[in-house]
């Protein structure tokens, strides 16, 4: 088995090398035979997918067969590992995850190469770029991080087991989602570089990559939120985002990718920001690779990081080389990227996109700066410093608030020019609504002058409501116009409107989801927690809830042994639920893990939700008594709800328009109403 896997990897390397070399040659020397050569390159690219898929399947089958002659499986699997986690073994370690990365890239490449008829020449360029990236990963797999490396000496009867933190259902889908996002950004980059190299006329490459970029962005969004949800559900510290370098690594390409999704509209509709978009798409790809470099080089310490190895050098070279190639072609062909239109007004959709991009890129810079500052500090003053949550909370939050303000104002601006009067007219009710929420929060006890965190929370709530109300008002206003024309009721008209321009209104739904997420995050300053040693019958009070320890019990299965605390939860003297926080000890690795229990509940002081989050922390080593920690986290369920809304909005935006847009007679276009564009 391992030999077949190794052979499949070598075959994939040969195929991707051929795809890159022959494809490049066919494009560089057009003439007799170049078309056939290009076709063989395309087919070699497709064959690469087959070979990498074979290697991946073999590794998974070997995991199911408990084949510990493969060093990777010895380190990351064990006999009693449940079946779903045997699949997860593929991406749970350094070598396997690189193989998985390569598989996803080959799969994306396969789809691209099968759809080559859309524009054969542009697709051929993109195919060569993808083959080059694929070649790098296959070189790594074959020569630096081989997933089929054999164990020397005695073969143990059982493996070391999968990291307990990864043995959670979400961990089966979180990494694939994240990787689909990281890897997927190679496709828009490949098209962008291809278009730059061949001086592709017009914006067709933007149209071709739009859906790729949106799908990729959706996967990355899902990956990030699934990771946050996993951290919340498993790590047991009551939070979902710790500003760890590896978390930051996923956020950076997301930020530039989001900026690109906005600025690309400027190029599509107005032929502007061509140079900027080119750099943005490159930066997104580059940051995805940089994140991988961070995770795998050991250069920056992180709890998430893979074991340190020499493959960091490989990534560093690849980053430098890709930058050099991109800069070379940019300098050579930048004259091709001139803007077609000029900006007509400062109060316009165009200028809002420019500022929106500035803020996204600035947010990315802030995260990048914070992630690298320990290294910079070590370089300049000889000692490392820690850059943790307090830094990001103080620095990134103001930028996020500014972005939220633009998210609220942007949709109200028309392309080219917006009159101040129409802006005032459309902005008045949402602004009054936001103000009312601010006043209500102060009445209900939020004191923004006592702590900057409360001030941020108040501002985020007001801006979040502002975003929601502007989105709702856009739907209502557009629906009214349709309703007046067709005589349908308002709701049907809004659905009609939605179908007529899925991209724009899908985008608004995403904005709504972002506002809901922000509302969820703003609950953080109001978190409470209590920790107590609890024996049978002991009580603990947090907020309006009283936890009474009913019992402790134990269980055992082949994979792990566990202890449960059985806690009855009372509110107002009435039992509302029973929670079972758990502590496991995995047998293969002998590592403990806590599984908190989360009870979402409606708040007593507002129409808001809170999570009652209970952790069984283990036993006090001195007294032998169990320790229970309870958190009361307001608004957290909003985060997951907002994420689902964001995903829904993206799916809507991906659906083609149902009704073709036709203008048969000159019509008056109301600025900043339905004619504002997306």
């Amino acid at each position: 088995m391992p030999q077949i896997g190794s052979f499949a990897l070598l075959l994939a390397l040969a195929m991707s090398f051929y795809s890159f070399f022959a494809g490049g040659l066919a494009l560089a020397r057009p003439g007799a035979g170049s078309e056939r050569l290009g076709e063989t390159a395309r087919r070699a690219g497709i064959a690469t997918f087959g070979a990498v898929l074979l290697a991946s399947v073999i590794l998974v089958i070997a995991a199911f067969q408990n084949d510990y002659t493969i060093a990777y499986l010895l380190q990351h699997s064990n006999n009693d590992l449940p079946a779903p986690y045997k699949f997860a073994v593929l991406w749970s370690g350094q070598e396997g995850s690189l193989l998985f990365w390569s598989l996803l890239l080959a799969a994306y490449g396969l789809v691209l190469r099968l759809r080559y008829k859309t524009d054969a020449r542009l697709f051929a360029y993109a195919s060569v770029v993808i083959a080059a990236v694929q070649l790098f990963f296959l070189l790594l797999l074959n020569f630096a991080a081989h997933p089929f490396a054999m164990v020397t000496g005695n073969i143990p009867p059982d493996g070391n087991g999968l990291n307990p933190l990864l043995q959670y259902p979400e961990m089966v889908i979180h990494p694939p989602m994240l990787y689909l996002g990281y890897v997927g950004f190679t496709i828009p980059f490949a098209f962008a570089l291809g278009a730059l190299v061949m001086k592709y006329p017009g914006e067709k490459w933007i149209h071709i990559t739009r859906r790729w970029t949106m799908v990729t962005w959706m996967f990355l969004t899902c990956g990030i939120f699934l990771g946050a949800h996993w951290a919340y559900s498993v790590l047991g510290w009551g939070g979902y985002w710790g500003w760890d370098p590896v978390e930051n690594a996923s956020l950076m390409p997301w930020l530039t990718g989001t900026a690109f999704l906005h600025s690309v509209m400027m190029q599509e509709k107005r032929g502007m920001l061509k140079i900027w978009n080119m750099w943005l798409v490159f930066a997104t790809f580059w940051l995805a690779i940089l994140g991988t470099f961070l995770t795998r080089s050991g250069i920056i310490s992180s709890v998430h990081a893979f074991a340190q190895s020499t493959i960091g050098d490989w990534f560093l070279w690849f980053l430098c080389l890709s930058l050099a190639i991109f800069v070379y072609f940019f300098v050579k062909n930048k004259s091709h990227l001139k803007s077609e239109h000029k900006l007509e007004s400062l109060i316009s959709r165009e200028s809002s996109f420019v500022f929106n991009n500035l803020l996204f890129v600035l947010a990315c810079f802030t995260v990048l700066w914070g992630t690298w500052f320990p290294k910079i500090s070590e370089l300049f003053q000889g000692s490392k410093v820690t850059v943790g949550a307090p830094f990001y909370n103080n620095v990134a939050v103001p930028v996020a608030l500014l972005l939220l303000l633009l998210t609220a104002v942007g949709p109200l601006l028309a392309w080219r020019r917006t009159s101040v009067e129409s802006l005032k007219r459309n902005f008045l009710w949402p602004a009054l609504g936001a103000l009312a929420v601010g006043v209500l929060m102060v009445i209900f006890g939020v004191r923004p002058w006592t702590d900057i965190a409360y001030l941020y929370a108040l501002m985020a709530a007001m801006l979040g409501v502002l975003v929601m109300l502007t989105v709702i008002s856009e739907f209502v206003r557009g629906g009214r116009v349709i309703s007046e024309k067709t005589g349908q009721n308002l709701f049907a008209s809004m659905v009609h409107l939605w179908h007529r321009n899925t991209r724009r209104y899908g985008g608004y739904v995403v904005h709504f989801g972002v506002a809901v997420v922000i509302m969820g995050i703003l609950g953080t300053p109001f978190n409470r927690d209590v920790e107590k040693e609890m024996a049978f019958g002991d009580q603990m009070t947090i907020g309006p809830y009283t936890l009474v320890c009913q019992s402790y019990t134990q269980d055992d299965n082949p994979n792990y042994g566990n202890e449960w605390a059985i806690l009855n939860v009372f509110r107002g003297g009435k039992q509302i639920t029973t929670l079972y926080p758990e502590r496991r000890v995995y047998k293969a690795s002998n590592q403990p893990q806590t599984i908190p229990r989360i009870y979402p509940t409606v708040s007593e002081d507002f129409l808001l939700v809170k999570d009652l989050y209970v952790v069984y922390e283990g036993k006090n080593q001195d007294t032998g008594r169990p320790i229970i920690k309870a958190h009361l986290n307001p608004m957290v369920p909003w985060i997951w709800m907002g994420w689902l809304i964001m995903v829904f909005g993206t799916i809507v935006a991906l659906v083609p328009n149902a009704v073709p847009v036709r203008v048969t007679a000159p019509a008056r276009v109301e600025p900043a109403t339905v004619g504002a564009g997306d």
Partner: protein
Amino acid sequence: MQFIQGRFRSRILHVLVLMVAMFAFLGAGDQDARFKDLGHRMMCTCGCGQILLECNHVGCTASDRMRGELIAALDRGDNDDLTLQSFVQKYGPTVIAAPSTTGFGRVAWIMPFLALALGIILTVYLVRAWKNKPAPALAGGIPTPHGTELDHFREQARRETDL
């Protein structure tokens, strides 16, 4: 009249001073709040990479001891700076969860805001420059579009308005 205005101003000043003092001393004696504040400004040193009060993994060799030391420091009446300094001396500068606001650490805090300021200035400059860029002069006045040219303009309008 001037006297009344002077007294009024003096009252306002008193109220402002009182408000500042009130907020400055708000919760000054709250040991639990200080414990939480300081505990969230430090990292656990066991290698988990978590904030001291958020490190909860079973069998942690550092966080319990560090929490005990923090409580002891507060019981002794050490102020915040002294407490943090004693932890830095014992565990090194990486025990503090964020760069300091003095020395080289200041660079970490300044840079994002500097980038924001420069970015805004640059963007405003660019936007204004684009706006003020002269449109190409039309030699024969404004031509009336016809036929395919008109279709082109309609297509452009559709793209830009999407309705």
